[in-house]
């Protein structure tokens, strides 16, 4: 430890904004009752109206399946083109829009829990940031490995790109990422904070590009661009494509409306006033980033997307780790939606938030269910009716759409073109895998089955920031 460093005992405010207590039993009964009533109504309608049509019972199922398929295809196309066009409009506006230099003091909060293996690289990337006025606050959330000692070594006034950068450390008992971020926010003195993950690495221009949006006083937060660092592996390459096509492109289209629905955990810039209005982070969901975003939007703040504020993150390298991560994300998003269901049901409370919540609901619940249904339908048709060419034609259509989206996203972000061929198996294998997990997580969430956070195992294979840039091959 640096001899000039000093240790202090501090007390951190541990209180959080609590939603009202829920009566789970009543909620479940209500769901069962409503779905039962709806199902009975549907069955009675079918029984009464079927003799009036030319359809038989078996014909009804075929007809219903085809209609569902057409609806799914229609929604899929609308979704693709709406996202592509809005993303294009945003990038176009973004490219021509000039913003003045604005360099307020920023605190970078780095919450860490057993991230000793990657912490050094993360801090190195932060010291290389091209910004004149910032500090780094590491919050060690009760790590059980050597994170505390590694972090202590880093404390001090370290040499940054534009002068000395102050690094402080808060050692607190384990309480989760939300509480760790709140601790860092409590300690920071700046009016703008950048919240990130312990394993993320920021690119040198990320602060400069992100902070300029706050010149607009209605902007409460800026969502950054997350990219996969550890590539050159089938699963991580697929995730790299997913981040571009499935996360960044929709975020870009949401940026067009200034209503980004999730500020990613690896990089999010916040105005402290907006955080205060939202009641800071809460640890009652498993997706604290989705929750804080919805809370900020509910307070009428705008959230924009900055494609050049880039953070590299380590993606899971095994299917088990990947599914664990997605299971947590899905349940966390559903918990966040449930917390804000008032906006979902009543659009007069906050219309923007209602749109965002319905979109999240659709992406987390309806879309995966539709995708699974379609794939099961084609499997059944192929196995039992011998119509195996249907699945091929379906795959061709989807693959063409995915290839088109992949080319656009990769070109827009000047990314690696070698990722384009992965679009061929992207939908039929990778997304299906994720969607099955999402469906399982949704069922469990509605049944109220308890879960644990599930810490991802870090490999530290991403390397230093320089390696990260080389690996990703960006610019």
């Amino acid at each position, binding site marked *: 430890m640096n001899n000039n460093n000093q240790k202090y*005992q501090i007390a951190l405010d541990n209180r959080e904004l609590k939603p009202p207590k829920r009566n789970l039993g009543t909620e479940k009964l209500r769901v069962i009752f409503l779905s039962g009533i709806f199902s009975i109504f549907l069955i009675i309608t079918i029984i009464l109206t079927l003799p009036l049509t030319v359809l038989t019972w078996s014909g009804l199922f075929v007809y219903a399946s085809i209609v569902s398929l057409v609806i799914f295809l229609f929604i899929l196309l609308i979704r693709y083109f709406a996202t592509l066009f809005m993303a294009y409009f945003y990038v176009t506006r973004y490219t021509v829009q000039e913003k003045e230099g604005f360099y307020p003091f920023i605190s970078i909060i780095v919450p860490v829990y057993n991230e000793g293996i990657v912490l050094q690289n993360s801090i190195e990337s932060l010291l290389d940031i091209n910004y004149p006025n910032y500090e780094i606050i590491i919050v060690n959330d009760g790590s059980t490995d050597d994170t505390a000692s590694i972090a202590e070594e880093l404390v001090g006034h370290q040499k940054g790109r534009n002068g000395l950068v102050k690094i402080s450390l808060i050692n607190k008992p384990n309480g989760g990422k939300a509480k760790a971020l709140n601790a860092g926010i409590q300690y920071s003195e700046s009016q703008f904070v950048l919240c990130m993950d312990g394993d993320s690495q920021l690119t040198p221009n990320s602060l400069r590009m992100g902070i300029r949006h706050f010149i607009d006083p209605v902007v409460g937060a800026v969502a950054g661009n997350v990219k996969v660092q550890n590539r050159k592996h089938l699963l991580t390459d697929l995730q790299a494509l997913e981040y571009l096509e499935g996360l960044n492109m929709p975020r870009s289209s949401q940026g067009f409306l200034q209503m980004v629905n999730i500020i990613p955990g690896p990089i999010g810039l916040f*105005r402290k006033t907006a955080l205060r*209005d939202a009641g800071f982070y809460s640890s009652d969901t498993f997706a604290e980033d989705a929750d804080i975003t919805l809370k900020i939007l509910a307070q009428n703040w705008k959230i924009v997307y900055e494609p050049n504020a880039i953070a590299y993150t380590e993606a899971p390298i095994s299917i088990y780790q990947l599914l664990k991560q997605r299971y947590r994300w899905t349940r966390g998003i559903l918990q966040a939606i449930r917390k804000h269901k008032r906006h979902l049901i009543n659009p007069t409370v906050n219309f923007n938030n209602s749109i965002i919540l319905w979109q999240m609901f659709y992406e987390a619940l309806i879309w995966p269910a539709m995708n699974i249904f379609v794939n099961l339908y084609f499997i059944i048709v192929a196995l039992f009716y011998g119509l195996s*060419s249907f699945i091929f034609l379906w795959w061709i259509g989807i693959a063409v759409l995915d290839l088109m989206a992949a080319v656009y996203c990769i070109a827009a972000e000047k990314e690696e073109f070698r990722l384009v061929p992965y679009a061929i198996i992207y939908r039929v294998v990778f997304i299906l895998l994720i969607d099955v997990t999402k469906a399982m997580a949704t069922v469990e969430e509605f049944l109220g089955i308890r879960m644990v956070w599930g810490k991802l195992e870090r490999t530290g294979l991403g390397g230093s920031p320089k390696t990260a840039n080389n690996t990703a091959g960006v610019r």
Partner: protein
Amino acid sequence: MELIPILSLIILVATISTFILAVGAYILYKVRERKGIVAQAAQPSAIPAELVAPAPLMQEQRIITPERRTFEPQTPQQEYGHEYQRQPSYYTPQEEQSRGPELKPTFVGSAPTYDQRRTSDNLRTSEEERSAKGSKKKYMRYTNEGYEEPTQQERKKEDNLRWR
């Protein structure tokens, strides 16, 4: 042999395999995670923590401005049931930079000095005192002898005059 049936078969096998893989991974996840579930402990309102910070630089000491505003520790008290539609408080960047933070950790051990944390406990006290003095003066009457606290009777008289 035609190409389409072969490709169809490949896609079919890939789709079925994906389903099996997803369900298998999910079962594995549930089996492994079952061990990790523990009951949630009650959360205290404040937790002790340790702060490791570097000694201040000379530059930092010079930055301190007496105008810096401080705030009382404030935590969100609102309840979801009483949510209401409100406008966010917008500030210009200059105003924003002059504003202080809302939540502050409390130093319970050997607290850093004024210079070290750049927070102004002394300022806070003096500001509080100043505001207390100000508020006191507000309700005092200025007479030839200086500021005087009005008696209950006098206040009553004033009220009567006002409402007559």
